[in-house]
C-alpha cells in the first residue's frame, strides 16, 4: 500500500461465495440492537402477557400515525429544505433575506413551542386539523435544518463543475438541476438520513396535541392501567426498532449511491 513498485492489492468479494474479511461475523451493532429489541418485546409478551401483550395490542394504530406523521413531515421538509438551501445561495437579496430569516427564526424557537404555536395560536385564525398542523409544524422546523444541510452540500461541489457546465452552454438553472444537485445528493444523503431518524423520534412531541401517535397511546394505556414501567419499556423498544429499521434503509440508500465512501 503506497509502495509504487508493488502491484495493487485487489480485494475480491462476491457475497457468500468469497466473503470479504470484514463481512464475516454475525454480530454487528445494528443486528444486536434491532433483533435484541424485537426479541425483548416478544419475550416479554410471551412470558408475561398481562400487561405486555395488552400493551402490544393497544398501540398498533399509534405506530401507524407516527409513521404517517414522520413520512409526510420528511417529504415536506425535504422540499422546504431544498428551496431554503437554494434561497440562501441566491444572489437576489430579497430571496436570500427571506430564506435566511426563516432559518434563523425557526432554529431559534424550540420545536415543542412551534408545535403549540401553530396548533393553538394560529388555530384561532385558521382552523387546521390536528394531524396537518402537527405535520406542518415538524416540516417547517426540520426544513430549516435541512436547508442548511442542502446549502452545505451544494457549496461542497467545486466551482469548476458550474464553470464547466456554463461553458457547455447550460443556463444557471440547467447547471444546477443537471450537474450540481445530482452530485450534491451524494454529499447530503448521510446528514439527511440523520435528520430523518431525528424527525422520527421528535414525532413523539405531537402527542402533546392529542394526536394519537405511539407515545400518546402508550400514555393512555399507562394512565388507566397504572403499569408505567412496563408501558414505557415497550414504547421505548418499539421506537428503537422503528428507528433502527429506518437507519438500515438509509444505510442501504447510502451504499446504493456510494455516499458511504470517500468522494474520489
Amino acid at each position, binding site marked *: 500500500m503506497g509502495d509504487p513498485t508493488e502491484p495493487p492489492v485487489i480485494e475480491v468479494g462476491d457475497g457468500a461465495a468469497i466473503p470479504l474479511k470484514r463481512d464475516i461475523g454475525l454480530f454487528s451493532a445494528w443486528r444486536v440492537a434491532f433483533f435484541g429489541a424485537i426479541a425483548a418485546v416478544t419475550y416479554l409478551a410471551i412470558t408475561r402477557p398481562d400487561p405486555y401483550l395488552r400493551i402490544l395490542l393497544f398501540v398498533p394504530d399509534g405506530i401507524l400515525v407516527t409513521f404517517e406523521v414522520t413520512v409526510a413531515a420528511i417529504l415536506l421538509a425535504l422540499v422546504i429544505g431544498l428551496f431554503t438551501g437554494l434561497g440562501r445561495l441566491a444572489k437576489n437579496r430579497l430571496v436570500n433575506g427571506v430564506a435566511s430569516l426563516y432559518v434563523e427564526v425557526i432554529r431559534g424557537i424550540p420545536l415543542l413551542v412551534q408545535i403549540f404555536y401553530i396548533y*393553538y395560536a394560529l*388555530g*384561532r385564525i385558521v*382552523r387546521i*386539523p*390536528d394531524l396537518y398542523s402537527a405535520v406542518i409544524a415538524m416540516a417547517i422546523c426540520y426544513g430549516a435544518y435541512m436547508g442548511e444541510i442542502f446549502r452545505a452540500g451544494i457549496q461542497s461541489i467545486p466551482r469548476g463543475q458550474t464553470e464547466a457546465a456554463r461553458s457547455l452552454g447550460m443556463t444557471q438553472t440547467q447547471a444546477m438541476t443537471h450537474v450540481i444537485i445530482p452530485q450534491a445528493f451524494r454529499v447530503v444523503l448521510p446528514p439527511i438520513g440523520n435528520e430523518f431518524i431525528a424527525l422520527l423520534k421528535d414525532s413523539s412531541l405531537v402527542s*402533546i396535541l*392529542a394526536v*394519537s401517535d405511539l407515545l*400518546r397511546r402508550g*400514555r*393512555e394505556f*399507562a*394512565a*388507566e392501567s*397504572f403499569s*408505567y414501567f412496563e408501558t414505557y419499556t415497550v414504547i421505548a423498544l418499539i421506537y428503537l426498532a422503528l428507528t433502527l429499521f429506518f437507519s438500515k434503509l438509509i444505510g442501504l440508500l447510502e451504499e446504493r449511491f456510494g455516499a458511504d465512501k470517500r468522494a474520489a
Partner: protein
Amino acid sequence: MRGHSFGPLATVLAGLCLAAALAGPAFAGAARTVTVATDATWPPMEMVDASKKIVGFDIDYLTAVAKEAGFTPSFKNTAWDGIFAGLAAGRYDMIASSVTITEERKKQYDFSDPYINVGQILVVPKADAVKALAGLKGKKVGAQIGTTGAMEVKKIEGVELKTYDEIGLAFEDMAAGRIAGVVCDEPTAAHYALQRTEYKAKFKIVGEPFTQESYGFVVKKGDQELVDLLNKGIKAVKAKKIDEQLRKKWLR
C-alpha cells in the same frame, strides 16, 4: 480581597444546622410535613392564581383537614399524567387532586374517606342541539387523559375519545371547533362554561351529571398511618361544617 473565607468552621456549623433542621421534627414531635401532589390545572378545585400560588377547593379542604389532624401540608404542582407513578415511586406522600375513588385505583393505592361528591358532565358549543353524550356518535369528544371522564366517553360506542394533558387544552380545541364536546367533572365544567369570560358565550352545559363519584385523597398502598390522619381530619372538618363554607366559596 481580604479573606472572608470562613473555612472549615462554617462548613461544620452549617452541617450541624442542617442536621438539626432535618432531625428536628422527628425529635421535637412537631407538626409532620406531608408533601401533597396536585395537578393545579383543574379549576376551581386546584389552580394557580396570578401570584403563582396553588389555590382551590382541594387546597383549602386539605389545609383544614391538616389543621384538625395535626400535620402541615406542602403542595407540589405535578402533571396529572404521571401523578400516580410519582406517588408509587415515593416522590411525595399523597395526592389531593380531585381523584375519583374507583375500584381499579383502589387495587393499587389507598384512599381516604370520600370528601365530596361530584359527577361527570358534558359541555358543548352553544349552537349544538345535542342533549346527551350518546348524541355525539361519530364525533370527537375530549377529556383529560386517565380521568374518569375519559373512561365515561370510552364507554359510549361510536364516540371518538381525544385525550388531553390538561383540560384547558380540550376546551381550547372545542373553541377552535376541532372537537364536539368535553366531558369533565361538574365543578370544572361550571368554571369553564359559566365563569370564564372567553368561553361563557361559546359553551353550554347539557343535561345533568351522569355519574355519581366521590373524591378521595390518595396515599401509597399500605400507608395506614396517613390514611387514619386524613380520615380523622375529614371527620372533624365535616362535623365543623367547614366543607360547606368551602363549597359556598369555591363551587358556583
